[in-house]
């Protein structure tokens, strides 16, 4: 997969939106996500399972964070909470300084739509929409004008090296290309935060490497906060900060990627 040229990523400054660089500057040192003593319990057939235990975590704006840990450690559960897809059983969750404990599901949906981009392990593109339409979709949820959202989606796809493929449907794209479209969908509307749950799990190592380059570049050049999960050491090594989970608890709250990679 071709790596996008650095200059092209500037197109993420979509028409009608504030400059990404300016946004990155103003958002600096502001907590995007803060978890205070957050726990999550699942109950099934009278069985209780504590997936997360008293998690304290703060993610600042423009961070590039990986949540690492073995399967069953609680990575996805934590990402679901951070992505406002689920609510904690205990503790408090703050998004951009706002306590979400009293938020309705509609308010949470609006926050996800306006402030968070998602990249799923299985891409999860809409099969009946083209790459361009998939990229536009979240902006259409927001009610953005058609010409503006189309222009933003085109620029984003071009920047991510998919300029020639934007009229193709997902089943006409490779796995790597689909995941790039998913990234385009996540970032085109310039969200405050992008959540990616094992985004490279279904990709070969070269494509995974390329995708990490892309996300890293978007974080570096546009100040988009990325939080992603992985258990792949090569992916983890690309993060600026690694949060290591084990049995639902953070075992290494703050660690530099290099240190983690050495440890691995």
């Amino acid at each position, binding site marked *: 997969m071709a790596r996008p040229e650095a200059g092209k990523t500037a197109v993420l400054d979509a028409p009608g939106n504030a400059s990404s660089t300016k946004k990155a500057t103003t958002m600096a040192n502001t907590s995007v996500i803060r978890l205070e003593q957050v726990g999550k319990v699942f109950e099934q057939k009278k069985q209780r399972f504590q997936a997360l235990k008293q998690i304290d975590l703060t993610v600042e704006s423009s961070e590039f964070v990986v949540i690492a840990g073995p399967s069953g450690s609680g990575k996805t559960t934590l990402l*679901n909470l951070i*992505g406002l*897809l*689920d609510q904690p059983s205990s503790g408090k969750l703050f998004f951009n300084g706002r306590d979400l404990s009293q938020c309705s599901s*509609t308010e949470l*949906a*609006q*926050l*996800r*739509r*306006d402030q*968070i981009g*998602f990249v*799923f392990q299985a891409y*999860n593109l*809409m*099969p*009946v*929409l083209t790459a361009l*339409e998939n990229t536009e*979709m*979240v902006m*259409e*949820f*927001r009610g953005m004008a058609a010409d503006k959202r189309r222009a933003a989606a085109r620029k984003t796809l071009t920047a991510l090296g998919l300029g020639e493929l934007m009229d193709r449907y997902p089943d006409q794209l490779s796995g790597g290309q689909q995941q790039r479209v998913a990234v385009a*969908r996540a970032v085109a509307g310039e969200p405050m935060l992008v959540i990616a749950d094992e985004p490279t799990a279904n990709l070969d190592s070269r494509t995974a490497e390329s995708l990490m380059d892309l996300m890293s570049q978007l974080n570096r050049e546009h100040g988009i906060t990325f939080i992603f999960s992985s258990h792949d050491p090569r992916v983890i090594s690309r993060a600026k900060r690694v949060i290591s989970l084990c049995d639902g608890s953070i075992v290494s709250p703050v660690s530099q990627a290099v240190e983690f990679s050495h440890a691995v």
Partner: protein
Amino acid sequence: MKLERKLAMRNLLRNRQRSLLTSIMIVATVSLMILFQGLSDGGHRAMVDIGIKMGLGHVLVYQQGYNDDPSLEHLLVDAAATGQQLQQSVPELTHMVRRLHLNGLIQAGANGVPITLAGVDPGLEVQVSRIADRKSMTAGQTLAELPRERSGNGLPGIVIGEQLARNLEVGLGDRVTVSVKPKGSSDLSREAFLVTGIFKTGMQELDAFWAELDIADAQRLARLGQEVSVLALYLDDVEKVGPVAARLSSQLPAGKYEVLRWDQVAPELHSAVMLDAAGMYLLMVIVFVVVAAAILNTILISVMKRTREFGVMLALGASPALVVRVVFWEALFLALFCIALGGALGYAGHYHFATEGLNFREVFGTTLEAGGVLLPDRFFSFIYPGKLAFSLLFVLLLTLLVTIYPAIRASRLAPVEATRHG
């Protein structure tokens, strides 16, 4: 195109097989509904039309009290003036005939049968009555076809039913004697007639107990002047019967006349039509319930198979209302397409039977009787536009109604579980 419409349309096209199967079902239902409705309503119109032509009329004007006591004491005395008044005040009128009904005895040799004698205006009656119609004649001539000058023996002509002729053991040219009780006298009035025509309607009570003669002969036999039993009005459209009857009831002097609709004079025929229509509606309801269940099943499966897609939409911030709209647009597109196609096919079928007719005798091997009326061998499909529009709208609403559950179910998916779905 807006996102929800785009998603809905493309999902229908993506799942061609499923869409096609559902479409076939709805198209078949809609087209058959139109076809059956047309044939049913056409059949009912034929029943009513025949009933009306069997000595009835759309609207009937009697002297007050005649229907309770149909004797010579309750005849319309000023029929000519009343008829003239009606001609002017009823623009919907196409024909008006006067009839004199008498109860009498017809005899030939040793055979005698009590019958109803209908005195009619032959020239007018042939235009509105099936009894007086040339097609009903199995032998001889209609009253209208008889020469004005009487034959050599000077006897007036009479037309009798085929079964009556058999029972009397008479044929064309035979002499019969008719006896009636005249007005204001206990003695019988008796007169000889010549059998000039024999008819067959298929209705037992007409073919075995009915005879028609010129109204002047009937009035003379009953020793009457210009009195008649009834003025029968025929309108340009059976649907206007109600309003015209109501209007006449208020226009004609109260207490002197009685204005009745055909369905009041022949309630058994009206009941037969209503019963048949009710059976048709019941059948349609059963068909609709089956179709509704099938549509519900199809849309529900469609929604369940796309759990992950809807979950992703919700995870990305789509409102539940948008998900509901996607499912509804899908059902609406499907329903509109099927109603258009089914409507076109059904109308084509209706058009065929409206122009060519349905030959009942060919299809079922027998002629049907309903409400004492023998249906014609061939009758024609008829569609009431309002009823058709209502039925099509009903199919559309039914489709949307059964979509409510799958749509709400899709909108209430939990994004976390839904995005993990197979």
